[in-house]
């Protein structure tokens, strides 16, 4: 009779096999003294290993665990108010304020650019020569009435100009030059006011 593998016998001895395999081993052991001896040795080993006793926990073990858990809980409670949770909320609020401020600044700065560029393109430009008479440009209110004595720089005018100034304005493509050009300084003295 061929003996079973040692692994199979040990698995049987320590209940590591299923019931079908266990029944096959039992049948073999009934007829094989060598395999039976191995299984019996492991049975004795199993009993021998039981002699290694582990010590009980010390009486204050439970107290220590409870204390550690309570300490952990109180640390967590404290942290949730004074620590990370609180700081996280503050950080989020600060971030929100920064975002709103950023959006507001961006919106306002771009609105200013738009206004100034519109005013710049609508200013009367008399580039044909320094002696061009200013009488050609007239400031008018939306209802068509003129504003005598209103300074051009102070008015937010809706300009109505003659064809000659429009041609000059089209010739002036450089926006910066138009914005910085001091038109009034080139007018003859006494004619800085827009004629009625």
């Amino acid at each position, binding site marked *: 009779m061929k003996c079973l593998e040692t*692994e199979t016998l*040990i*698995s049987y001895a*320590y209940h*590591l096999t299923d019931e079908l395999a266990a029944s096959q081993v039992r049948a073999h052991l009934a007829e094989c003294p060598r395999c039976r001896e191995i299984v019996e040795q*492991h049975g004795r080993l199993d009993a021998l290993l039981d002699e*290694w006793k582990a010590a009980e926990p010390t009486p204050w073990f439970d107290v220590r665990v409870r204390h550690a858990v309570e300490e952990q809980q109180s640390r967590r409670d404290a942290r949730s108010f004074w620590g990370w949770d609180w700081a996280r909320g503050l950080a989020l609020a600060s971030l929100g304020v920064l975002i709103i401020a950023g959006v507001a600044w961006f919106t306002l700065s771009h609105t200013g650019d738009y206004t100034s560029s519109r005013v710049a393109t609508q200013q009367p430009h008399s580039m044909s020569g320094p002696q061009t008479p200013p009488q050609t440009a007239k400031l008018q209110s939306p209802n068509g009435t003129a504003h005598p004595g209103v300074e051009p720089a102070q008015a937010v005018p809706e300009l109505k100009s003659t064809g000659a100034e429009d041609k000059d304005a089209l010739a002036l493509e450089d926006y910066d030059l138009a914005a910085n050009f001091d038109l009034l300084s080139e007018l003859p003295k006494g004619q800085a006011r827009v004629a009625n």
Partner: protein
Amino acid sequence: MAIETDLELMLRVREGDAASFEILLRRYRLPLVSYFRRMVRDQGLAEDLAQEVFLRVYKSRERYQPEARFTTWLYRIATNLALNAIRDRRDEVSDSAGDDADGGPVLERFVDPHPTVEQRLMQGDRERLIRQAVEALPENQRTAVILHKYQEVDYRQIAGILSVSESAVKSLLFRAYETLRVRLEPLLREGRI
């Protein structure tokens, strides 16, 4: 009154029930301290590690998911702590001992230099020989044997604890028990007389 399962208790702990945690503490204090005592030998360290397991269970109660058996989760935490402690102590010993590593059982070198009277009386007896034989096993075999033999953990659960296959656990146990049978043969013969 029906005995609550570990799972039921842990789910209640997750909801903040301190009484359920107390039941788990009472249920597993002895198994865990015994497990660590056999793994690291030192009683003080064993209790420190067992305390750490309970603390980790409590800390992670809100994230607990009942996917595996509670004991599988518990012993996985415990085993990781035990193996880390053994490695830390091994590093300390090898640092302090220099090159005098003799290749013998690792935990044999952790013997308290000032043994108590009780410990002296224990020297030379059967229990010490058994302990030395188990401690001399390779780390993974020793862990598997202690879990299987002393903690009575099923080999399928051991596979989950050690993150290896069931057949690998059977192989570990087979080799470990056969090694122990050979090493402890004098005691086995003695026992027959």
